[in-house]
C-alpha cells in the first residue's frame, strides 16, 4: 500500500485518495489506511510498524474546521 506523497507536509493529494480515512504515514507514503483509528492501530501492530504518524484525512465534503479550542 506504499503510496508516495509530495515531499512537503501536504495532505491535499491524500484528500483525493483517502477521503475520511485514518492513515499511517511513513517515509513520505501511506503505509496503512483504515476506517477507524482502532483498526489502524491494530493493523500497524500486526505488521510490526511502530514509527508511523497517524492522522485522519479530512474529506473535501467536510466543512473547514475553525475555533477548535
Amino acid at each position, binding site marked *: 500500500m506504499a503510496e508516495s506523497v509530495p515531499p512537503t507536509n501536504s495532505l*491535499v493529494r491524500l484528500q483525493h485518495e483517502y477521503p475520511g480515512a485514518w492513515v499511517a504515514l511513513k517515509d513520505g507514503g501511506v503505509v496503512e489506511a483504515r476506517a477507524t483509528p482502532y483498526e489502524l492501530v491494530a493493523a500497524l501492530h500486526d505488521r510490526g510498524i511502530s514509527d508511523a504518524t497517524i492522522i485522519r484525512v479530512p474529506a473535501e465534503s467536510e466543512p473547514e474546521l475553525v475555533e477548535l*479550542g
Partner: protein
Amino acid sequence: MAPRGFPWVYPYVEEGRGRSAQFLTRPLLRPVVAVRMKGARLGSQNVAALVDSGADHVLAAPWIAQDIGIDPDPNRETTLGIGGGPRRVRFADVTVHLLPPAVTVTGGGYDPSEIHEWQAEVGFFTQWEPPWSIVLGQVSFLDRFTVTFSRHAQALAVDDVSAFDDRYSQPPASSSHPPERFSA
C-alpha cells in the same frame, strides 16, 4: 544523549480546502507537530497534533487513551464547547513526547533520544472525529515552551520557555507589575 537544542522549527501542514470553499485560493495551512503520548505504556505510533493557542487544554481523542493503556478519571469529567457543540472530556495525567522537526507528519520515525518530554494534564474526549487527534493548547503545552507562529514563514517555532522573557524584557503595557509566571 540529550535532544537537539531549541528552537525547533516545523513547517505548516497544508490541508485542501473543502468543496464549498474553492473560491478561497490561498492555501489552508495548519500549525502541526508530531507527538507521542505515554500512559501505562508508550503510544504505539506518532500522532499529528494541532497547536491551538485558543484552546486552554491539551485534548486528545479516545483511541489514544486506549492505545496508551489509561482509563481517564470519571471524577475529572467536564463538558467543553468545541467544534460547535458540547463535548464531554475526562482528564488524566500522562507523559507527552514532542518529536523533532525531522519527524514530519508524512515522514514518520521515532528516536527516544531526540524528544522533549513533559508531564501533562490531558482531557480525553469520549467521542471525537476531527482530523487532529491531539490539540495542544495553553495549559500543559504553551506554558511549557515559547511557541512562535508565522503565517509569513509558513512555520511555527518551539523554543525554551524562557525565550519569551529573553526577547521581551518589559512587562505588558497594561500591567503595573510583571505577571506571575506559572511553574513549568
